């Protein structure tokens, strides 16, 4: 079973007061946790890779917990989430897909059973590659005010034999959300969609 070898961790927190309109009574906060790990499958085609998902589970949990801590420590303030991965050039896109289960599991575990699918994206790229991580409401994917994204990246990662793993959480809607659609207050919370 490959060991998870971490080279660096990066945390990014944004606090948004306004975007040209009225100052929000409660600023929107977004946090991203990025961890650069060695890709155990870099450099050649490996057929069986699923085992690494289990290895990554403790890391997913730790990153999710660190995001809640960065947002003040109370999981109840978290309203949106997303995840992503950037695979270094000696790996393949499929290695990024290994993050779906441990990343999503970690956030659901920490948030106490969020219902919506965790929006995600992934790519293969060099050091400094930027990734726009999609964000949606944690309990109902169709909540329009919470459709958002956060750009992340690290100047020196991922190297060829690395994977950059990312989780993102937010505390609310876009700061001046006003394009209608399903509201957070209208969530039924049965199917994860509405």
């Amino acid at each position, binding site marked *: 079973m490959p060991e998870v*070898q*971490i*080279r*660096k*961790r*990066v*945390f*990014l*927190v*944004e*606090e*948004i*007061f*306004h*975007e*040209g309109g009225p*100052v929000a*009574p*409660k*600023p929107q906060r977004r946090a991203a946790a990025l961890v650069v790990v060695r890709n155990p499958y870099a450099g050649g085609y490996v057929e069986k890779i699923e085992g690494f998902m289990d290895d990554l589970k403790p890391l997913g949990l730790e990153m999710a917990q660190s995001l809640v801590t960065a947002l003040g420590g109370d999981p109840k303030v978290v309203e949106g989430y997303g995840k992503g991965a950037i695979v270094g050039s000696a790996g393949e896109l499929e290695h990024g897909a290994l993050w779906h289960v441990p990343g999503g599991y970690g956030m659901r575990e920490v948030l106490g059973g969020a219902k919506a699918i965790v929006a995600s994206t992934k790519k293969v790229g060099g050091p400094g590659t*930027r990734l726009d991580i999609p964000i949606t409401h944690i309990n109902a994917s169709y909540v329009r005010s919470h459709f958002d994204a956060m*750009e992340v990246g*690290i*100047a020196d990662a991922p190297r060829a034999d690395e994977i950059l793993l990312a989780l993102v959480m937010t505390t609310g809607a876009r700061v001046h959300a006003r394009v209608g659609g399903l509201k957070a207050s209208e969530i039924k919370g049965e199917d994860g969609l509405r």
Partner: protein
Amino acid sequence: MTAHIQANSRAKIRKIATFVEEISTEMGKKVDPPTRRAAAVAVIENPYAGQYVEDLSELMTIGEELGELLTERAVAALGILGPSAESYGKAAAVGENGELEHAAAILHPKLGTPVRRVLGKGAALIPSSKKRGGLGVVLDIPLGHKDAAFVRSHFDGMEVRISDAPRANEIMVAIAVTDSGRPLPRVGGLSKDQIKGEDGLR
């Protein structure tokens, strides 16, 4: 706290971003303890955008205010007390409707004093960089030891950027603080245990 920032501040802050980096291995070799650095970045309205203004004192006052706010944020992000910080740096990026001198007005006259107050000391010059640029511009904040500029293990830099800033009428102001030097430093020179701390240089 955040409402307070808006209500009492001279700076019109649109957003604040904080970045923390922790390096635990390099070239497969363990970095123990891990090196850690943090940057706090405010995106503010440029009161002088689009016009030439001779007297830049408003921005100097804003610099003083941000010196305290951003240093406190960076130190808090590292989870350390101010006096435990080892190196620091500052930088600003002015949106396209401003001039480079606006960055200078924020960074140089008054920002340093509150930075040093939060960090307990800081005999060394605070290394700085500035530029004008568009949204998503990369800001490389230079880093040097806070008590002795010649400490070679602490010559470093930290890259920050915010994808939606600075807009044309905005300025990005950044302060970086560390609790360590580069990972695995081994190019000699003055080391931190040799600091005399008298002149800010050695």
